[in-house]
C-alpha cells in the first residue's frame, strides 16, 4: 500500500500505463510545467514527444487524439479545466463518440480525455463547469467521476486500458485527499461498477464525485440522529451501475441523489428517473436531488458556496424523507 493524494493517484496511473505500454502518450496545454501536479516526473521519464505540450486549440488536439488513436496509439488528453471542453465539443461528439459507429466498427478509439472540475473557488462562471451530463446524452462515451484517490487510480488505469473513448472528470474539491492505494500495477476498477461507500438501511444516498465526501459526512451526522444512510458512489456514469443503485433503493425505500453539477438535466435527474422507472414499488417517498442551483456560479465567495450541495442540504433532505414518510413499510 502507498499513500497518495487524488492528484498523485492520477499521476501514478499515467506513469504506470506509459511505462507499461509504449503506445500510450499524454498531451495537453502546459503539461511540461505540470500546472496541477498530475505530470510530476513524466517528462523526465518519457520525454517531450510522449508528454506533449500543445498549442491552445482544444478542438484541434482532442480531434488529433482521435486520429492518433485510429492509427494505433492510445492518447491521454489532459484538457486541464472542464470548461475548456466546450471548444472541443464537436470533435468529442461528432468524431470521438461516433466514429466507430459510422464506420461500422472499422475504427477503434482507445483514448482518455481528462479534465478537472475547478469549482467552488471563486473562479467565476467561465471556469467552474461540471458538464458530464451533457456527454451522458451522447452514446459512445464512457464517463468516470472518481471521488477519491483509490478510485482515481483504479478507474483511470482501467480507462487507459479501455478500447473505447473515456472521459475522466476530476473533482478539484477532492484533490488533496490522501489515502491508501494498492501498489499492484494492474490494480483496476472496472468501469460500470459502483461502490457502496457506506452501508445503511434507512435511505440511499447516491453521490457523484465531490458529492461523495459530503454524503459521507452527512451519513455520519445522520447516524447520530438515528438515520442509517447507505452511500453509493456510481464511480462511472457511463456505464452506470444501476443494478447496485436499485438494490440499495429496494432495501431502503428512499433515495437522494447528490450531484455537484447544475440540476437541470443532470446525472442526478437521470438516476432519479431510472429509479422511479424501475423501483417505483419500493419507494416510500419522493426522490430528492441535492444538486447545484440552476444559476451561474458567481465570483464572490460567500454567494458562490451555498449554491452547491452541502452536508446540511443532504441532511435536511434525508430528514425530510424519513420524517414525512407517509406510506407504511412493505
Amino acid at each position, binding site marked *: 500500500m502507498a499513500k497518495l493524494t487524488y492528484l498523485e493517484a492520477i499521476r501514478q496511473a499515467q506513469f504506470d500505463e506509459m511505462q507499461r505500454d509504449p*503506445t500510450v*502518450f499524454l498531451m495537453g496545454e502546459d503539461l511540461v510545467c505540470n500546472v496541477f501536479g498530475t505530470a510530476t516526473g513524466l517528462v523526465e521519464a518519457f520525454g517531450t*514527444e*510522449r508528454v506533449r505540450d*500543445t*498549442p491552445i*486549440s482544444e*478542438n*484541434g*488536439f*482532442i*480531434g*488529433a*487524439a*482521435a*486520429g*492518433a*488513436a*485510429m*492509427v*494505433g*496509439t492510445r*492518447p491521454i488528453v489532459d484538457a486541464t479545466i472542464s470548461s475548456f471542453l466546450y*471548444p472541443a465539443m*464537436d*470533435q468529442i461528439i*461528432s*468524431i470521438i463518440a461516433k*466514429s*466507430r*459507429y*459510422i*464506420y*461500422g*466498427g*472499422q*475504427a*477503434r478509439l482507445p483514448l482518455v480525455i481528462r479534465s478537472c472540475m475547478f469549482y467552488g473557488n471563486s473562479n467565476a462562471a467561465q471556469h467552474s463547469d461540471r458538464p458530464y451530463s451533457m456527454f451522458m446524452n451522447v*452514446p*459512445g462515451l*464512457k464517463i468516470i467521476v472518481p471521488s477519491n484517490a483509490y478510485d482515481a487510480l483504479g478507474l483511470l488505469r482501467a480507462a487507459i486500458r479501455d*478500447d*473505447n473513448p473515456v472521459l475522466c472528470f476530476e473533482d478539484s474539491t477532492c484533490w488533496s485527499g490522501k489515502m491508501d492505494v494498492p501498489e499492484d500495477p494492474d490494480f483496476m476498477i472496472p468501469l460500470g461498477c459502483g461502490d457502496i461507500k457506506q452501508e445503511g438501511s434507512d435511505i440511499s444516498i447516491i453521490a457523484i464525485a465531490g458529492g461523495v465526501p459530503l454524503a459521507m459526512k452527512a451519513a455520519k451526522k445522520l447516524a447520530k440522529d438515528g438515520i442509517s444512510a447507505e452511500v453509493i458512489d456510481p464511480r462511472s456514469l457511463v456505464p452506470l451501475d444501476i443494478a447496485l443503485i436499485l438494490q440499495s433503493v429496494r432495501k431502503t425505500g428512499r433515495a437522494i441523489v447528490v450531484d455537484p453539477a447544475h440540476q437541470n438535466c443532470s446525472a442526478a435527474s437521470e438516476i432519479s428517473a431510472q429509479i422511479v422507472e424501475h423501483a417505483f414499488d419500493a419507494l416510500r417517498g419522493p426522490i430528492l436531488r441535492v444538486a447545484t442551483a440552476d444559476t451561474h456560479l458567481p465570483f464572490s465567495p460567500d454567494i458562490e458556496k451555498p449554491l452547491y450541495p452541502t452536508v446540511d442540504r443532504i441532511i435536511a433532505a434525508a430528514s425530510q424523507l424519513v420524517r414525512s414518510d407517509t406510506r407504511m413499510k412493505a
Partner: protein
Amino acid sequence: MTDISNSNALEKLRRMLRIRHFETVAEAIHAKGEIPGALHTYAGQEASGVGTCIVLRNDDYMVGTHRSHGHPIAKGAALRPLMAELLGKATGICKGKGGSMHLSDFSVGSLGETSIVGSGVPVAAGAGLGSKLLGNDRVTLCFFGDGATGEGAFHEGMNLAAVWKLPVIFCCENNGYAVSTPSSAGVPVKHMTDRAKAYDMPSAQVDGQDVDAVEAVMAEAVARARSGGGPTFIETLTYRYADHAVNMGRVLLDRGDEVDEWKKRDPIDLYRARLLDSGVAADVLARIEDEVSAEVADALQFARDSAYPTQAEAFDDVFVDRLPIPAFVQI
C-alpha cells in the same frame, strides 16, 4: 508529360473512371429510391482525388469529407462494399450504418468521410501525429473543400501539423462553392494557398482537372512529409458538375453556363486525350472503360443481393462491446 511507361498511367484513368461510373449509377438508383438519405457527388473533381491518392502507399492514410465517394475509390477501395453501403446493406463497408456521408475503407487507409465540415482536419493531424509517435513513415492525406477553410477545426488542425511538423498533406479541393456560397463570399483570400501562410506551411496551387499535374505536386509533398519535412498545403482548382447535393434541402443554384465551360475541361476527357496523344491505343482505353463498367455493375448487383442489417446491429460498434438492447426494440 504523361509517361505511359509509368505503371500509374493507366491506373489513374481506371480510378477516375471507377469514380465516375460508380457515381453515375449511384445517382440513377438514388433517383429511383434505392439509396436512402442524401448524396453529394464528386463528378468533375476526379483528377483531384486520383492525382493525390495515386502517390500514396496502401498503408498511408486518407481522411475525407461529406463529398467523398471518390476518395476511397481513389485510394484503392473495392467497389462492392462501397456500393452496398450506399444502399444501407449489412455488407456495406460500414455495415450500412454510415451511408453516403461516411464511405471509408480502413483496409486501404481510408479513415473515413466525416460530414461535419472541417472536422476531418484535426483527425488527419492526429493520424500524422500517430505515425510520428509510432515511428513509421506513413503519411496522411486530408481532403476538404474551399468552404471548410472558414472552420476553426481547419485552423487548429493546420496549426498543429505545422507546429509539430507532422507528415500530413492538406488538400483543399476548391470547387468554387460551398453549397450556394461562392468561395469569394466565404473566403477573404483569392488563393486558398494564402491560408497556408498563417502556418508557414509550404503550399502549391494546381490545376485540379489535370491528374498528372496534381500527381506532380503531390509527389513533392509526399516526399517532404515522408522524410520528416512536415506538412504541405495543396489547392486543387476544380469543379463539381452536380448541385451541392440531392435530398438535403433545396440547394439548387443558377450557375449559368459555368458547368458547360468546366465540362470542356473534364478531367477524364483531358486525360484520355493525353493518353491517346502519348500513344496509348484507343482499344486499350475502351477495354479499361468496359472493365470499370462491369466492375460497377457487379458492385451494384452485389449490393442489391445483400441483406439489410439486423436490428441488433444498431447496438453494435457504439463501443467495442455490443450495447445492451432495450426491451422495446424488437430483434
